[in-house]
């Protein structure tokens, strides 16, 4: 205890002289503050510029995504239009196809067939073939489809049979499913 006391550092009066070396001069302090402020401001500037830039980038990308979605919607609209029954019927009629009300049905997976397919003459379902293509049809029919069809009339059921089977093989992944061939004669 006594030793401690003797070793105790003596207090002395601290005279702020401004030149102690451990303190900054006024000018340096101000410079330091200005420096810190400058760095801070600089960082904020960089940060906000970056945010602004990213925001701009984001907006542009969103814009692009939107444009792409508009384009997709327009293309989807075309697909919808082309895949409607109305347009398919028109296209089928232009090819000379008619509804088949008497198809051959093949039962999967054993492949037994039901029904007696017969060539359709197009009058079985009056009005179902669109009028505009029916009007355009006779010329196409007589020139290309009409003549060979006459010659090929007897083998037609056979062809249809094969077509029906081919169709079923392609889709016959679902066992037990009943497939019907709607191919026009």
């Amino acid at each position, binding site marked *: 205890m006594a030793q401690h006391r003797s070793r105790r550092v003596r207090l002395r009066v601290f005279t702020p002289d401004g030149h102690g070396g451990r303190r900054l001069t006024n000018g340096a302090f101000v410079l330091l503050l200005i420096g810190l402020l400058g760095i801070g401001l600089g960082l904020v500037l960089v940060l*906000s510029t970056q*945010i*602004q830039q990213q*925001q701009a980038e984001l907006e542009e990308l969103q814009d692009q995504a939107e*444009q792409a*979605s*508009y*384009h997709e*919607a*327009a293309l989807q*609209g075309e697909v*919808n*239009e082309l*895949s*409607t*029954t*109305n347009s398919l*019927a028109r296209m089928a009629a232009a090819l000379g196809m008619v*509804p088949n*009300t*008497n*198809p051959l*049905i093949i*039962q999967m997976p054993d492949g037994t067939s*039901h*029904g*007696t397919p017969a060539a359709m003459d197009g009058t*079985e*379902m*009056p*009005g*179902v*073939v*669109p009028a505009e293509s029916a009007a355009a049809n006779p010329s196409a029919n007589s020139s290309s489809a009409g003549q060979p069809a006459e010659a090929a009339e007897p083998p037609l059921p056979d062809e249809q049979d094969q077509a029906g089977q081919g169709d079923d093989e392609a889709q016959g992944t679902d066992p037990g*499913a*009943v*497939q*019907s061939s*709607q191919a026009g004669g």
Partner: protein
Amino acid sequence: MRLGSTTFRLRASMIVLVLILCLLAGRAFQLQGLDSAANAQAAAEKMTHTRTIKATRGSILDRNGEVLATTQPAVKVIADPASISVNGYNADNLTDQQAADLADRTPHQIAEVLVNFLGGATTDYLPALKRTTTGDGSVNQYEVLKEDVVADTYEQLRQALDEVTDVLGNKGLYGITSEDDPIRVYPSGTLASNIVGFVNSEGTGAGGFEYYADEQLAGTDGYEQYESGQYGRIPLADNTLKDATDGTTYTLTIDSELQYSAQQLIASEAAKYNALSASTVIMNVKTGEILTLATTPGYDANDPGAADPDDLGNRAISEAYEPGSVAKVFTNAALFDQGLADPDTKVEVPASIASGDGQIRDSNRHADTKYYTARGVFYHSSNIGSALLLRQMDTATYQQYMTDFGFGSASGIELPGEAEGYLPDATMADYTQDNMAFGQGFSTNVVQMAAALASVTNGGVYHRPTVVASATDATGAAVSLPERTSRRVISEQASAEVRDIMEAVTAGGTGQENRMISGYRMGGKSGTAQMIDQETGQYDAHRYMSSYVTVAPIEDPQILVYTVLEVQDQYGGTVAMPTSRMLMSMALPRYGVLPSAEVPIDTEPLEYEP
């Protein structure tokens, strides 16, 4: 105290500071204390902007996913003529010559680009583009150039405008903007338009299913609230986003291809027989699902305004009529179920019978007494025989059967404007029951009729008819639909007996081959009912509702086709039968219904020896 003394300077600064602080505090008090709410609101309003995020209306699909109605992004193209006249430059920085050149040339340049993408001629757009002042002399910054422009087309238009060099040699033309304005598209147009319906110019359902399910289809709009200043949106500022909830997408039970065939066929048959209107319905008798509901005349859903307003509804639902002889199916169904008759019950049919103040006669007049079985009464469609058979049943029991079959109340099909029809109450007069035995004295719509016919032929269970197969919300999750009720109305045995007599109509007797489809056993019944003249309230002797129902395969019915035509002096067996038969011949293989192994010749007795 010297002027230059430190003390003086300190005090002076203090006083100045206090004054400034007082001023600031006063202002702060004024802003925050006196009228804070209004001030804060005014500030927020100045910075905060709200943008509505429109919900996308749900699509309507057919049972195989074919799109019947969908919404496409589209815009209104807007011009700002004031900006166009200077092409976006600050007018103060332009020389008079430049300003004059710009005002003269820019509208033309823009009009040329517009023509390329929006069609029309430059003269269609120039007047609007040059209208820099409105009628009252103020600056005009808003001219709608075109509506319903596909968004993709507009984007291309914008890019093209950016590529044009203006008269000052700079790239880009300014002053064309857009507003979102999605359009409803019906890719198939006329196909199933009487079911799908249409929307009005505000995009709200105005007809058919679009109207019936408008709320669910529409979804809920969202909004975005953000703060922005002079240079656009303020990053990291307050931003509230509430996404729109897109509408429900519905899959209908309608089969587009069958619907198409039915529409084409019914239109052609209606024209052939000079029918004023016609309807045909194809139903899955096991479920009550409507596969096809075609009416004529119809309309194009993309342009409902072009059609006769009378044709914008759905006659098969909105028009009630007396069904005529097809209703004899129900007379027999009730009798068979009560055990009061069977197909071989013997009926003595005189030339006429008295009923109330009048006489009942058969449409095929006969002077002698006929000896028919109940099957024969049905086959010959004898009014007298049917009335005589039904006289065994009291009116209350019969009325209950008819109520169970769905008459007198709306079927609940998911389409607007259903006519409930009329069914007399249980205390009806005996002559009313006599009339109802052959399809007069009560009224029904086509769908009610089809559902009732399905119930008595499918084994005796009534299924509420429906056009909705399923629904999914915007995330693709299934939306539960109201449960459909089913109820037994007659016994299996009675239903089998009904099918027995219906088969006799298509296959019994002689010379009925034209009613049949090779390879299938089928049942049918024709009906021809005089229509009531709306003006006189009397039956019109020449206007008929002629109908024919066919059910197949009769040993285990799957499909029912019921056709009604409004014609003059022509019978259901002649005008409606072909449509029903042809559609049946298309529907059976389409739904994988196999032909019967053998079709027996129907030799069940139609008459008996007294």
